[in-house]
């Protein structure tokens, strides 16, 4: 082989090698790759339980079981934005990991799902989103006890009775005074 041929061959091998490496890399990236599939119901009511499912399938369509999927809610509160973990689920035999979640706010929710598929060394991410509606106050303060009848009304009844009797005594005093007036001696005694 002359020099040109040798150079061309080396270049070709170099290119081929690079491509092969790239292809290998790409194939390896795709080959271990797991496809997440998410579906979310259309109408979600805040405060009611709903399910956020994700199905992990390998490239050949086989279900990826036993993988832990961590769910995060993209949230913003008091000027701080971040991802709040809302739960974990493990994929079952069909590759389904479903998180039972009760959305607390109405509005747009962005869910981020992270998982580490077997054989991978990087965490993969899937996302989904849904809208929630509803305006019912959800948080209930701790229960108290209310016994019908045992309230302020009872106190008022007792106090009123006592003051009524005192008032009656005052009326008796008025009667004493009136009985003392001369000429009135007959009026009260004869009334009885």
């Amino acid at each position: 082989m002359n020099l040109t041929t040798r150079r061309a061959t080396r270049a070709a091998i170099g290119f081929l090698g690079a491509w092969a490496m790239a292809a290998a890399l790409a194939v390896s990236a795709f080959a271990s790759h797991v496809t997440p599939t998410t579906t979310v119901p259309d109408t979600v009511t805040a405060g009611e339980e709903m399910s956020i499912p994700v199905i992990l399938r390998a490239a050949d369509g086989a279900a990826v079981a036993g993988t832990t999927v961590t769910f995060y809610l993209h949230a913003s509160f008091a000027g701080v934005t971040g991802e709040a973990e809302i739960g974990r689920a493990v994929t079952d035999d069909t590759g389904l990991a479903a998180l039972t979640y009760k959305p607390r706010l109405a509005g747009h929710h962005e869910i981020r799902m992270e998982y580490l598929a077997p054989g991978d060394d990087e965490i993969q991410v899937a996302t989904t989103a849904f809208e929630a509606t509803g305006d019912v106050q959800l948080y209930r303060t701790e229960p108290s006890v209310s016994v019908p009848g045992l309230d302020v009304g009872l106190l008022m009844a007792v106090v009123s009775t006592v003051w009524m009797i005192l008032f009656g005594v005052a009326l008796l005093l008025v009667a004493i005074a009136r009985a003392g007036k001369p000429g009135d001696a007959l009026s009260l005694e004869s009334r009885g």
Partner: protein
Amino acid sequence: MAALSEWQRRLEETALAPVRRTGLRYWALVAFLLAVIGWGAYAYFIQLRDGLVVTGMRDRISWGLYIATFVFFIGISHAGTLISAILRVSGARWRTPVTRMAEFITVVALVCGASFVIIDMGRPDRLLFVFVYGRWQSPIIWDVLAITTYLTASITYLFVPMIPDLAMFRDRLAGRTSRWRGWLYRVVAIGWQGKPSQRRLLASAIGVLMILIIPIAVSVHTVVSWVFAMTLRVPWNSALFGAFFVAGAIFSGIAILIIVMAILRRVYHLGEYVTEKHFVYLGYLMAAFAAIMIYANISELLTHGYKLEEGVEFHFRQLFLAEFAPLFWFYLLGGLVAPIVIALLPATRNVRGMVVAAILVTFAMWIERFVIVVTGLRVPLMPYEPADYFPTWIEWSLLAAGLALFALLITIFSKVFPIIAVWEVAEEHESMPVVPETVEPAAPEILEPSGGTS
């Protein structure tokens, strides 16, 4: 009959004497008491100007001498209830000479007690808020309700049985006393002529009141105790507080009554009517209530001390062994055990012995109120060092002024109103030879010559 009316005349003269003659001693006493009250007013002025920081109270021990004294005065206001009402309902005839003084004490003690709550307030300028913004669910409002009701009922209960005596004053003093006094007696006697119809009405009124005032009085000190028992403080969180406080109130009320009786008896020569028998009987009652208090204390302390929940151990240590031990043991031994011993020993079962017992009980009960308030707040709620509380001169001055006010009002009452229930004493006396009494046939021996010393 002649002897009876002579006896009656002597009784009426004795009752009228304080109103007829006023000596130098009276004015000297009034001047002294006014001076003490004036000093207390100055102390209160400083407190108003600078705030409650001039007292010894702080965040950790936020109640102190004022609240203890408030509870103490409301407690001794139960003197009237026991003597007048309970003994009247049960028909104990020996009560008649002392009922009036007991009823005086009730009214005056309530007034003094209520003023200590106002003194303790951080914003007394907002006192009306209690009525305008009051919450029925608050123990403080229950206090206001109960004390207002009790004060009204007590004033009525003081006034109604006094009407015949006021009529006697009106008639006997007509024209022989100052114009305003004549006018006063004419007005407050509300036209009493002794007519049968009036007597019937009076009997009804007294009958209603004497039954009504017993539950009112019980409710007053119960709700006062609930100011403490409705909180979560370890030494106060007890279901027994209501009954405990009512028993303590009647107990301290009897003691104050004995002291006031002894003083008025000597000063106004009531020895013929208020005899050693009365002191001994009241002493027996006081001993009985001391026994009840011992029982209540055992119930409370044993049930808590047996288990020693958190906080109770600290409380027991401060109460029995450490900081408050001298005060608490004085209360137990001097205030609860001593009256029983004094009542039981024949050597001390006399006027002097009973007065000594009463003085011990009075001190001990004030100390007990003080200890309840301060030790209750002293148990640490979180991990911090327990605080200490020492009243300042302002608090002591106001306590002295409160006691002086109590004494002053009783002194003035005794000069204006009949200090002994003349018609009731006469009624009891005239029935004495007719029906053999089941108690104390030795009465004639104890009767001292009229106008005698005690």
